[in-house]
């Protein structure tokens, strides 16, 4: 049931993509027609080697097999991954910018920085969890507010965990999500030393557009400062992820941004393009400027293709597991400056989503109900997801968006999977250029 047929430029040709097994084929209309009569296919029209091939790759399955059961088991397998543990740590709620669409309320709702004591507690928590669950890789992302407003906390966390992991034979994968205005050569050098594996910085358009959106508290633009930082990071060799937030206000100007980046010698970097979503009450006022789902489907893949064609690296690969994101992963935690624990950055500071806090012993205190509420999310019990061909790579979509829309985690959200067909097509073109060059 998980076969997708994506039209190509040639009217009689389709990409057959199986979302459960990731198998991809180029097929013609005849084969498509045979396969689409999903139950009790009349396979006589297929060649026997084709049948074998389709069976092996899960495109054709035995009648008694309910593939949804495979999805269910794969979800649990991904949820309880055996090696990995992921933390996002909020070194401060404060921020030096005032972006109008910020889902955390621009560091003005909460603004507390993580105290030295809480930094120690967080580090203890990371170590305890890694040992308790025998993790082989620790992924820690520094987040805010603007994390570098609490530079000491950032460096303390990196330094201590870097050495501890080395001593204990654990792989340490630190990353940082920053607005980029406070990056200096000195800090970047330290990041290199600690093996920081990505720095995410945001640009929302060419200078004139960006400077209207991502502004300092006094209204001044941040474009020039960020370009300066990008150059420092690029030189350091740490992979940059340059996030571009897109909405009704800026999408037309994004092509100009791509060209400007190339002019600044910043071509070829990783460039995720994301629509702005309304995920919390803090940014509800901005929601009229966010794209609706049809617009996302229309605009985002076009921009992604454009970026791709201009030589940027656009993350395109579909999930290989049926969870939308780390929120539903058992070993993923977001810790704020109060040492409260959440499952998603969108829930930060909102106690009704809190799953616990770090106790004096550096362990999670009482596990609170939202943990169970979130972790029991089961898209196979949602009507739409149950019959959806995208479930194996979507997992029911973003639970935070589901919550803001329907007041419960137990609902599907299809917003962020929009434009999948176009994205998939681009992904496959990138992976198998020989299939596409000759028109196949």
């Amino acid at each position, binding site marked *: 049931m998980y076969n997708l047929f994506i039209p190509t430029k040639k009217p009689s040709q389709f990409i057959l993509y199986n979302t459960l097994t990731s198998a991809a084929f180029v097929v013609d209309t005849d084969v498509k027609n045979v396969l689409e009569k999903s139950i009790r296919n009349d396979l006589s029209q297929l060649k026997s080697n084709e049948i074998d091939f389709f069976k092996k790759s899960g495109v054709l399955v*035995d009648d*008694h*097999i*309910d593939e*949804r*059961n*495979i999805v*269910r*088991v794969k979800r*649990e*397998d991904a*949820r*309880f991954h*055996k090696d990995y543990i992921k933390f996002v740590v909020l070194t401060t709620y404060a921020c030096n910018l005032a972006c109008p669409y910020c889902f955390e309320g621009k560091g003005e709702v909460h603004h507390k920085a993580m105290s030295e004591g809480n930094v120690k507690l967080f580090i203890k928590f990371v170590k305890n969890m890694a040992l308790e669950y*025998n993790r082989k890789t620790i992924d820690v992302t520094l987040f805010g507010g603007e994390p570098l407003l609490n530079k000491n906390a950032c460096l303390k966390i990196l330094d201590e965990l870097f050495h501890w992991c080395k001593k204990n034979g654990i792989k340490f994968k630190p990353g940082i999500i920053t607005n980029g205005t406070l990056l200096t050569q000195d800090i970047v050098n330290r990041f290199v030393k600690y093996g920081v594996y990505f720095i995410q910085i945001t640009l929302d358009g060419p200078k004139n557009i960006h400077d209207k959106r991502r502004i300092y508290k006094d209204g001044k633009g941040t474009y020039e400062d960020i370009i300066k930082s990008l150059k420092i990071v690029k030189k350091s060799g740490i992979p940059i992820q340059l996030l571009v937030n897109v909405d009704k206000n800026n999408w037309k100007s994004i092509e100009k941004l791509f060209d400007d980046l190339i002019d600044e010698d910043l071509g070829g970097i990783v460039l995720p393009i994301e629509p702005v979503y309304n995920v919390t009450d803090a940014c509800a006022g901005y929601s009229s400027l966010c794209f609706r789902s049809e617009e996302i489907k229309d605009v985002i893949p076009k921009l992604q293709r454009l970026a791709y064609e201009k030589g940027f690296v656009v993350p395109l690969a579909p999930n290989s597991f049926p969870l939308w994101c780390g929120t539903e992963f*058992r070993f993923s935690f977001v810790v704020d400056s109060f040492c409260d624990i959440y499952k998603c950055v969108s829930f930060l500071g909102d106690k009704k989503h809190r799953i616990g806090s770090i106790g004096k012993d550096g362990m999670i205190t009482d596990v609170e*109900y939202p*943990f*169970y*509420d979130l*972790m*029991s999310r*089961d898209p*196979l*019990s949602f009507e739409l997801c149950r019959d959806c061909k995208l479930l194996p790579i979507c997992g029911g979509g973003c639970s935070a968006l589901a919550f803001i829309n329907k007041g419960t985690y137990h609902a599907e959200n299809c917003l962020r999977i929009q434009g999948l067909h176009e994205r998939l097509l681009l992904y496959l073109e990138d992976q198998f250029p020989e299939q596409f060059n000759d028109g196949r």
Partner: protein
Amino acid sequence: MKSSFYNLFVKADNNEYILYNTLSGAAFIVDEQVKTLFEKKDKLRADDFDKNDFKSFKNEGVIIDDSVDEKKIVKVKNGQNKFQSRYFKFVVIPTYQCNLVCPYCYVERDEITGKKMSNETLNATIKFIKKTVKNNDGKELSLTLFGGEPLMNQNSCYKLLEALILWCKKEKILFHPRIYTNGTLITKDVIEKFKKYSMSFIQITLAGTKNIHDSKRTHKDKTGSYEETIKAVKLTFENNLPLVVAINVDNDNFSHMDELLDDLVKRGLKGVRIMFTPIYSMPHSCAGYSPHCLTINEWGEILPELQKMAINKGFNVPIKPYIEPFFCWASVKNSYVVDPYGDLYKCTSLLEKKYKIGSIDKNGDIKFLEFPYYDIMSRDPLSIKACNDCKLLPICGGGCAALACFEHKTFHRENCTRVRPGFEKKIKIIFEKELLKK
């Protein structure tokens, strides 16, 4: 505040009730008046309760916040039990051969498939076990020797135990070697081996009094096996090995249990650990035996009586584990059954090709997992109506997947044979002491 969905009130003899919460495991003795308070279900008021009572009810999950849906908690815990555990359970069948021909045996008879595990398959099995445990950071490893009669292939048994004991020691993994045997082949030599390998569980089966046992558990020449089995039980018991005597219960023998227990006492076996197990009706070669099997309701009536009788006669009867979280091992990720062909299954009751989940190659790897693996592993009792509505779910987990499949032709249904029968009576027996104290 509201009353937990998982509160059970079991009436005791003296107008008091045992309030037992199947999710938290908490138990209280309460009177009629307190019980009445709970009838308001979702409109409980702190003021109506004694202050301390209310506090402990809240702490123990008997009274909960309105926003909490406990089924979500059950679902997550169920998932954790299945996928997060670092306890590994392997059942290895070193041979399908057996020297007995019990009419109710559900493992295919050796006339049909009397296969012994080859050396090559044994080595592959050892590799498979080590790899699986190692790759998944196992902390504990339980190995059960099963058959046929495992002691018909003693060499393989000992080789397997030897290899894993050494390896577990090296890897600092806790090892629990176990065996299910009919006992007839247990000699002094075998006992010495059991000691050497520090067996942690030895189960020997009886089917009733000498007369009944000898009519059922017979050799191929129709001679009975009671005396040999008792001898084995004695030998194992006297050597202080961790013995469990399983007594199969059916229509034919339940009314003669006191005779059997008395005979065991007479033969010096007082204090032995006893477990009563019903003979389940299954669609295997033993299907013809079904008329002898007890129904679930009959079993629910009989079991607590038998347990009580055995306790009173001085036997050691494990009753407590039945109120601790139970889940079917078939749907636990790190649990496998390996047969003499090196084929993998999820349960010893599902040793048919159509339930095969894969096979071990000579390097100890599984080439790929077949659909029955996903079918069994995706069993989700919260999506089964009967289980979703059931207060026993937290300690039952939906029951036996194999029996559910035999009855309903799908794993995705409930099976109530393990926990439900006689549950309230069992609760009473367990908390009797505390009731008496009051």
